[in-house]
């Protein structure tokens, strides 16, 4: 597994220039490395996104870079790929200094990047996407012939198989990602950077990706994997570096470390792992908080978003809805929250019957003690330009307690906001700060505080910890469990299987708008869920 990495006597510190065994020269240049960063610093105004980053990655290895959201990973990779220039420091490729001012320069020195959000043209074929920007002749046909030959060679050498003439828009996500990898290899990438590659993949597709990465490694390609998923780091990387608050705080050989150690390095303090699942079963006669029957939703383009969904959530239970994003979970939440009208079916939410003709609107929902933590916090949950105090009453701005003869009582609103910020550890605890200037995790905590403060009886939650740092994730999970224990019926939608498995008493899997599988929380198995998410399990 550790082909090509240097084993060291001092146990685990890899990648610091001057300390490696072979190829190091006096001025800190490590000639045996594929990529080396020295003292990279990047500031945006008053914010130091990267500070004095040193990194050395050996050729033909898979190196992981982990860090919480906001730690500076994306900035670092943007510098490598030419989107930004570092304020200080230099980049060395193969031991030679490289001046990268644009993605063209990066490609010329052999760096290829697969972004988190693919940069593909849906209406072009795989071949056309790969050629785009790398054409050598003026006429497309000549380029296409050359490209096809080269791609077929690459495909057989690296074991990547894709239909070259298929339209990218119709390909499954895993194959779109492989197209991105092919694009990089076509441009003679020797260093391949992947930014959060598994966010959109099922567990099985992720395994396939890792097989491809291992093949690349055997052929001498250097792979840099940026992720916050520690399990993947342990599975596939040879070495790993940890970024925290803009600084590189540690380098480790993967074999010599553990998820726990990496998590602590990412956060800077010890973490405890907690089992959130309910101890005993609920009594059989527990009433239902949500009861959905035959819900259907066909969107404006005629696509079926929800097809005959039946589900129920009892009071005091967390029902987790798993599935790859885009399989109807978002629409399910929107319908139950009163934001979107279903095409057919009906549901009962906290005792109120709802159907296509009689759908309560979001303010009625709040009166029914049904609260909603939206999936897209920046679009729905907050107004970026409002102060935190103003965002903290979004949806509750008509309440009696903040009114005085037609005017809003700003002092009361501020006081309430400060109280929420304290109870939910929102930092900085200043109600007058612009909502948009809080970090993702703190924004999410503020929204959660707002929705949980009034003790809802039914809670609809979407992606509660997306883009949220580990410390905040702990607190958010605790608060959700607290609500459950107090008798709240919670419907949890998340693309993070780990989160679903950690919190849900029951798990449903959605695929293309219908429920394709159901398991009890404590019997949940990741592989089985992964198969359900791809609709490839036995009973499908």
């Amino acid at each position, binding site marked *: 597994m550790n082909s090509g990495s240097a084993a060291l006597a001092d146990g685990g510190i890899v990648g610091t220039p001057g300390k490696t065994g072979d190829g190091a020269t006096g001025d800190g240049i490590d000639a045996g490395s594929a990529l080396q960063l020295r003292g990279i610093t990047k*500031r*945006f*105004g*008053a*914010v*130091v*996104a*990267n*500070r004095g980053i040193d990194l050395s990655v050996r050729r033909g290895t898979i190196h992981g870079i982990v860090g919480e959201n*906001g*730690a*500076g990973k994306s*900035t670092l990779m943007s510098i490598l790929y030419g989107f930004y*220039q570092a*304020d200080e420091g230099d980049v060395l490729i193969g031991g030679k200094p490289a001046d990268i001012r644009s993605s063209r320069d990066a490609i010329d020195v052999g760096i290829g990047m697969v972004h988190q959000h693919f940069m593909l043209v849906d209406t072009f074929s795989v071949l056309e996407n790969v050629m785009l920007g790398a054409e050598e002749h003026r006429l497309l046909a000549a380029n296409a012939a050359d490209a096809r030959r080269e791609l077929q060679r690459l495909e057989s050498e690296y074991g990547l198989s894709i239909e070259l003439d298929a339209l990218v828009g119709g390909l499954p996500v895993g194959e779109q990602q492989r197209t991105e990898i092919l694009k990089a290899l076509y441009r003679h990438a020797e260093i391949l950077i992947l930014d959060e590659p598994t966010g959109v993949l099922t567990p099985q597709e992720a395994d396939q990706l890792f097989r491809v990465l291992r093949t690349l490694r055997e052929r001498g390609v250097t792979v840099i994997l940026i992720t916050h998923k520690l399990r993947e780091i342990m599975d596939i990387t040879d070495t790993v570096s940890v970024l925290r*608050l*803009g600084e590189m705080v540690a380098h480790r050989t993967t074999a010599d470390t553990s998820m726990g150690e990496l998590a602590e390095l990412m956060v800077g303090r010890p973490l405890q792992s907690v089992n959130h699942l309910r101890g005993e079963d609920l009594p059989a006669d527990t009433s239902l908080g949500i009861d959905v029957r035959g819900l259907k939703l066909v969107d404006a383009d005629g696509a079926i978003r929800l097809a005959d969904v039946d589900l129920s959530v009892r009071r005091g239970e967390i029902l987790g809805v798993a599935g790859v994003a885009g399989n109807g979970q978002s629409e399910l939440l929107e319908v139950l*929250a009163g*934001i979107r009208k279903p095409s057919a079916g009906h549901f009962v939410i906290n005792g109120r019957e709802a159907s296509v003709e009689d759908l309560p*609107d*979001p*303010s*009625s*929902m*709040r009166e029914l003690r049904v609260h*909603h933590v*939206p999936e*897209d916090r920046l*679009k*729905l*949950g*907050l*107004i*970026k*330009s*409002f102060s935190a105090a*103003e965002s903290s*009453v*979004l*949806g509750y*701005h*008509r309440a009696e307690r903040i*009114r005085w003869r*037609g*005017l*809003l009582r*700003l002092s009361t609103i501020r006081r309430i906001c400060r109280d929420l910020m304290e109870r939910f550890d929102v930092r900085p605890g200043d109600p007058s700060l612009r909502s948009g200037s809080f*970090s993702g995790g703190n924004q999410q905590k503020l929204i959660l505080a707002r929705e949980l403060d009034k003790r809802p009886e039914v809670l609809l939650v979407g992606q509660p910890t997306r883009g949220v740092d580990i410390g905040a994730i702990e607190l958010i999970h605790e608060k959700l469990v607290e609500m459950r224990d107090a008798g709240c019926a919670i419907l949890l939608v998340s693309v993070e299987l780990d989160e679903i498995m950690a919190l849900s008493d029951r798990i449903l899997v959605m695929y293309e708008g219908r429920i394709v599988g159901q398991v009890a929380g404590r019997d949940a198995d990741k592989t089985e869920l992964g198969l359900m998410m791809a609709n490839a399990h036995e009973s499908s």
Partner: protein
Amino acid sequence: MKINTASVPLPAWLEVVVIPILNIAVALFFAGLIMLAIGVDPIEAVGIMVRGALGSDYAIGYTLYYTTNFIFTGLAVAVAFHASLFNIGGEGQAYIGGLGVTLVFLLLDRWLPAVLLIPIGIGAAALFGAAWAFIPGWLQAHRGSHIVITTIMFNFIAASLMVYLLVNVLIQPGQMSPESRQFDESAWLPFMHEFLGVFGLDVTRTPLNLSLLLALVCCVGVWLYIWRTRWGYELRTAGQSEAAAVYAGIRPKTVIVSAMCVSGALAGLMAVNEIMGVHHRLIMNFTAGYGFTGIAVALMGRNHPVGIVMASLLFGVLYQGGAELAFDVPLITREMVVAVQGLIILFCGALALMLRPWVVKVWLLFKRPESLEPAHA
């Protein structure tokens, strides 16, 4: 050192006072170049402008009279802007507001005392202005018809309608010019020189009237409405994010229509100045471009009542000072004055942030130690 200056926050006094002053200075510099080119001494010209606008009570009276109009139309555009609606129908809404005042006074001015007529007139101006903005608002909310297009069209409709009414219906019998008959004096809003005369202050006669006080009251009212009431909260939320508004239980359609009505009402109130306060009759085209200038005023004032008052004052000075300049210096025509006004709008509106990066760099030179403290990225 490369900095992304757009992300550096500046203290309020720099953003709201220094940068606008710098913008005006740059505009005046270019205006000065033009004046040099036509053979006029720019320093002398600016002096004439400033004296002509502020140098006597006669000058100040005229300046404030213009300022009143700009405050009303500027507030109108600003309120709509907070709901992300670009209301450029201020001309038409003000015009129709004038129609409302006229109709009500032609009917009632001989029957009711001033203490009733004045509030009724103000109410009619607001109501008719709101009604003229209601239709474009409704069309945007329920049919998706773009407000910019419909409000401009309604300006044309208003102009044609008013020509028809003035020439055929409202014209005083036996008269040549298309005007209504003059209202009874009980329907006249007192002039400022009359009002001040009651307290023993003797000021020169100008068109300035008590509608200025109404304009200032509206500023306070708009400020309270937008930032201190729940309707203003809903308006701003819907303006920032329709999805978030729906999430919060707000109906975007209701917000669009009500925002346009408030906006139209404010534009309509301009008629209180012109019709009730100055002309005391309905005349053709009394809106004379104030509606459109209101857009520039709102933009320069950053859609905030305080900024709008300041921008309105600036434009009042430009109008009055420009008139004096065109009068005193034969080489400077009315068009030249409009060009200077245009330059000011250019540098204070479209190019308002052009100088900001340099201001940031100078600012950082003085604040360097604290501002570069490491912060979480």
